[in-house]
């Protein structure tokens, strides 16, 4: 398998094959289709607000996710479906009402357009309740349960599924939806955490602002987005001197680390591609050097580190000067 930098252009949720982590990630990432063929599909479902403030907040999350996917990750509009309590609030962005029936149809439609190796992200937000298979999010009309979502997702065996339930009392979705090639994120650790959650807002903010990009490589992985939101939630509760009543859970951090939101287009210019490759080689040297830090003298380590980092920085400058994107 070629482990060269990805060449997929216009990837939104893209699976990374990075040399530095190749061995660790190979098993998780190896089953994916070639990156250039990979497509991403986003389904956003927000439930009943109950009060004006929640209606606005849920709609705001849906709108922001739509925008970040279509403008920053370049997901084709046809691959984005947004179902909300009231689709008339924003007809340009919202595709319909988030009834159980509409959700089922959205999954059906998605199943017709996905290909093997694609990435599917489902983002669910609202007021949750119930336990285990009966866990649910309050939608207009009958509420679909966690078990219903399990049924709808059961056909996506050839795709990577990222399922985010940012609703309150969402923790029990973990057990119900767990499965291979799936990452399940819930804003709470169990159905007992019933207070309104703050996870969704921070999760979306991390994606919008790229603040979640912990290693500053220009991409935000699912793991980075999750870690960012979790930390931000904790900080918010602490700032408000409130007891933390939501503990977010991620099902598979290894797989989550390989799936990124947004991508970086590889240049077709061979000069740029060569520079990128050289820079990547230098980054691998930094990784190797870091592994030896404990056994090296401080001064020697720092000198070598600085040499490599300066070289990387200069390489980035050269890439940009050559018209590429570092």
């Amino acid at each position, binding site marked *: 398998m070629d482990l060269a930098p990805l060449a997929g252009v216009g990837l939104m949720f893209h699976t990374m094959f990075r040399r530095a982590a190749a061995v660790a990630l190979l098993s998780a990432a190896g089953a994916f289709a070639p990156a250039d063929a990979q497509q991403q599909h986003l389904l956003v479902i927000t439930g009943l607000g109950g009060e004006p403030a929640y209606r606005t907040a849920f709609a705001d999350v849906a709108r922001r996710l739509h925008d970040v996917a279509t403008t920053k990750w370049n997901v084709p509009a046809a691959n984005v479906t947004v179902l909300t309590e009231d689709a008339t609030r924003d007809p340009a962005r919202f595709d319909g009402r988030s009834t159980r029936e509409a959700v089922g149809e959205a999954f059906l439609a998605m199943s017709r357009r996905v290909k093997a190796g694609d990435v599917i992200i489902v983002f669910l937000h609202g007021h949750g309740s119930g336990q285990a298979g009966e866990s649910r999010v309050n939608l207009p009309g009958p509420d679909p349960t966690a078990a219903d979502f399990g049924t709808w997702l059961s056909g996506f065996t050839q795709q990577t599924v990222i399922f985010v339930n940012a609703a309150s009392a969402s923790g029990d979705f973990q057990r119900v939806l767990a499965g291979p090639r799936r990452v399940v994120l819930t804003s709470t650790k169990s159905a007992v955490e019933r207070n309104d959650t703050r996870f969704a807002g921070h999760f979306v903010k991390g994606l919008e602002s790229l603040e979640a990009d912990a*290693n500053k490589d220009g991409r935000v992985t699912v793991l980075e987005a999750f870690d960012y939101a979790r930390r931000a939630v904790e900080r918010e509760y602490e700032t408000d001197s409130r007891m933390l009543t939501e503990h977010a859970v991620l099902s598979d951090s290894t797989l989550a680390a390989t799936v990124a939101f947004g991508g970086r287009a590889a240049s077709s210019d061979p000069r740029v591609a060569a520079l990128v490759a050289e820079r990547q080689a230098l980054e691998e040297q*930094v990784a190797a050097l870091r592994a030896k830090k404990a056994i090296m003298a401080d001064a020697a380590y720092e000198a070598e580190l600085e040499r490599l980092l*300066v070289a990387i920085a200069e390489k980035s*400058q050269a890439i940009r000067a050559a018209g590429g994107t570092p």
Partner: protein
Amino acid sequence: MTRTRRFRQRSWRALGIVACAPLLGAWCMDQPDRRAILALAESGRLEDAETAARTAGPTFAATLGDVLVLRGRLTSADSAYDAAITQRAPYARLAEVGRAEIDARRGALAEALARAERLTAAYERDGRAWLPEEHVAAGRAYVLRGRRDARLARQALAAFDAAWAADNTLLEARVRAADLLLDKYNAADARGSYEDVLAVAAEHPAATLGMARVQEFDGRGETMAMVRKALAGNPALTPAHVMLARLHLEAEAYDSARVAADRALAVDSTAVEAWALRAAVAWFTGDSTVFAASRTAAEALHPRPSDFYATLAESAVRHRRYVDGVRFATTAVTLDSASVRALGVLGTNQLRTGAMTEGRATLDRAFAIDPYNVWHKNTLDLLDQMDGFTTIARGRFQLVVSPEDAALMELYLLPLLEEAFDSLAPRYAWRPERAVRFEIFRRHADFSVRSVGLTGLGALGVSFGDVLAMDAPSAREPGSFNWGSTAWHELAHTFTLGASANHVPRWLSEGLSVLEERRARGSWGATATPDFLAAYKAGQLRPVSSLNDGFVRPRYPAEVQYSYYLASLVSEMLEAEFGAAVFPALLTAYRSGLDSPEAFARATRLPIDSIDTRFQRYMQTRFAKPLAAIEAGEGPGDVKGPFVDAMREGAGHLEAKRADAARAAFEKAQALLPGIEPVNGASWQLARLALERADTAAALAQLARITRVHETALAPNLLEADLLEARGDDAGLMAALERVIWSSPYDAAVHVRLAEAATRLGQHAIAVRERRAVLATGPADPLEARYQLARALAAAGDAGAARREVLGILESAPGFEKAQALLLELRRPPGGPR
């Protein structure tokens, strides 16, 4: 007929009938019974009780012994008890335990325990058949044995409960159970048991005294009245006199304390506790003759009077004389190394004086003997937790703080404390001999345990001299307290306590600390409020000569808070009229052992009464206009008058959306109380009205009125910051945000705004501090925060630190392009090509 007399008669009747009927058989039917004799004693008629017991003959030897013990005639009591035991008189088992208790009082603990063990062994064999009074005797024996084995408290309680179950008119059983529960820190159950007794006998003196102890345990303010009520029912109740003496002593009412201790000794001259309190009064008032005589008396009663010294230690500590407390407690422990009380007061105050290792070891010993002591357990648990704290030792301070707060405290608190030290040391002409230890707790409950061993303390900070503790900002709601002014306040105590060798009265120490807060920053420290002025106008505040009572004997809940501000005003007045030198002069006078009248006479050359007069003039002048606009309401601090009318009028107009009328009313209210800015008062309403009509300048003027005098005005400061930022007033923005940080330091966005404003103004040192603060708050994007710090360091001219920071960033994120660019920039020679 008084209620007391009715109660006594009722008690006689009830007790006589029940005691004679099933238990004692025919012999008692024609004679006074034990309970009737004890009822005499319990009403304070000890002489009559003794006469009745003697008249009743040898079968009442044990009862006679009990009465003699109450009169402090221990040798005679010995004889009576011995006679009862030898003759196998009724209640011989009570005589046995009475004898054991006398042995213990004399320090013959081995003999006491031997007797107690014999009794409990018998009880464990056939106690079920014992009389209710004998169950009580067994319980008392277990209590005695509990001095060496705290677990026996359970058996004691079971025996008292068995007595009560067998005969619920035997009130002594319930009272003793309650006393034991309270001794074991279970105030809730103790209260219930005392209430059982009081439900039967509403004015039962011992139960009333017990309720006083419960109230004291719970920190309620009616303790003294309850003790007096107990004494009204039984004027010979020695423990009540002792408690009254202690309460007076704690309130620094030395004459009253002396009188109460003497009254206790007049009833029972063998009460070591009363001798100890008499000695304590003498020690505080410098009467070495009485002190020595009291000590000699205690030593005559007990060859190793550990409790005598423990009481002295506790009294010293109550007066903030912690080092003396440790000294007395050390003697107490030397005299009885197994005394939990002595070990407790020693360990607790070793910790308060910074001897952390020794204090922990002492409390470990205390806890090993009595694992039920909640103070010791709480403190030891906290010390375990504090093992994970970070210690930052720098300059004249040692900060001990949880790791989460360490960076923030280092950034803000250390410089503030250094500034405070430089301000306070010359003013009070005194310097601590060692680094001041400052402990900061993220949970208020932990701070409370550190201060008093229990949760629930209302204070924000505490000063033990050169060991200070306070709530971290996270311990309370954002904006609910100012952690900078709190730290400054506590450190000021270090100086006033130190300069006076801990002799300064509390009111003056608090007054000076509040004054120093205001001196530190214009918006810090307590300010006048309408309710304070109403209380003043209603005569509900103390004169200078008795201002200490406002702290130690408050008459209503708000009095303590009012007293803080009042004391600061007295301090202000003293400085204004006598110059700044009056404070070191006063503190030196206190240090030399003078009391307040003497100290004021020396420092001001005026009698303290004339200080009272001058202060009244000062208040009338300073608050002339506000006082005219305020009238006292029904209770303390209730406010009426033109000011309140104007505020109500404004609120009414506001609700009816009559903005102009509301504005006029609020302006009127504001004019009535110039310089006084109640929270959410007229200025806040006027600021909001100004914003509604888009008059930013007017809004800012109103907000400034609030933020310049309120140390915790979070919302007004944030609004002021927003408005100033929109106007491009970076200097004003910085000032507002600096104020915000002292009441809410964990908001990274505030630090970012401050850093950006500082950068715009070229104040790079502040920008660096703020960028570090952003990192300390655990930002959402730590690498970005570090990058901004590196930029700020570079802008501040610290290229080396900037380079180290950026290398650290790139080490973990080599692809961080902005940091790469900064690295190259930092390597570029000055003036070189970009």
